[in-house]
């Protein structure tokens, strides 16, 4: 289904509430990537992210009648994904990663990809994924919502239940931590690109 054909969240919600379960697949299709990405950034692996995002869609379906449309469906779904992912991460054993644990250097990426620009982009993506694993799950969620989903601090506050001021403070700290990790790995790899 293309975005052009999509008739809006409230249209499909109405259909589902009227008893057409299949209409829910349009909502899943429209929001799956963003929901999955948020779950992935918080959990740090694809298997758990898939489980979390599926659980979140299922929870949303069960509670759809109670959804008051005060916020958008996306914000509401994000809140469910956020809470489900945070609970999962907190319930599992924590492991601490060292900078040396970063699995590759830029040379590896260059050897796989002769295009320097693409290799650098891939390297940066991996480095960010690694850096995200070294900060807390809450900070990961904030960074993901702010940078990947381009949500403003008010929307993030609504999704996470953290006050707007606190979101700003936590984002500032998370940003600083990530930059510190990135610069350490880059120093280790002696990377000096623009």
């Amino acid at each position: 289904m293309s975005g052009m054909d999509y008739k809006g969240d409230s249209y499909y919600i109405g259909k589902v509430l009227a008893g057409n379960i299949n209409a829910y697949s349009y909502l899943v299709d429209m929001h799956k990537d963003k929901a999955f990405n948020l779950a992935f950034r918080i959990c740090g692996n694809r298997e758990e992210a898939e489980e979390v995002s599926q659980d979140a869609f299922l929870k949303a379906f069960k509670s759809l009648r109670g959804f008051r449309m005060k916020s958008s469906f996306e914000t509401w779904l994000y809140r469910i994904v956020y809470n489900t992912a945070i609970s999962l991460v907190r319930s599992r054993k924590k492991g601490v990663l060292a900078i040396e644990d970063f699995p590759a250097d830029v040379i590896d990426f260059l050897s796989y990809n002769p295009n320097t620009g693409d290799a650098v982009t891939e390297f940066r993506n991996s480095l960010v994924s690694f850096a995200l694993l070294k900060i807390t799950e809450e900070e990961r969620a904030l960074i993901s919502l702010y940078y990947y989903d381009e949500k403003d601090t008010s929307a993030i506050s609504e999704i996470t239940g953290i006050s707007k001021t606190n979101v700003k403070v936590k984002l500032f700290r998370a940003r600083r931590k990530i930059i510190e990790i990135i610069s350490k790995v880059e120093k280790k790899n002696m990377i000096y690109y623009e």
Partner: protein
Amino acid sequence: MNKEERFEHEILRKYINSDSIEKAPEGFTSKTMTRIRIEAESPVMTVRAYLNRYRVPLVSTVITAALLAALIFIPAGQSGTISQLVLKYIGNSGISLPKIDLSAMPSLNMPGWFSYAVIGIILLAFFDRALSGLFRRHRV
């Protein structure tokens, strides 16, 4: 955002952007929908959906049935059941309810119980609005 924050923000922007989001795996929608269909067809979900859809008439039926049962079966002392007591009370309602003076409107020729019925209907209408607001609050 101050100058330092903006600088750090710009650095991070180079690394993270909305184009590099991790996409859901192949078949995600169909897998999710399969789980949802199984859940929707489960007896618990079916009962929950039924209760959700018909909760207003169900609640009022249950309350009415409970009140009727109480009236019929609960004894109100040695003389008989509550229903007999209530009937007796209604019979004496002219004494126990406040007297409404209709002499100011001599042209109106209504039975005595009519003014009580009108007040009762108005009170019930308010009660209905309050209950309706309470139950419909959760609807989309």
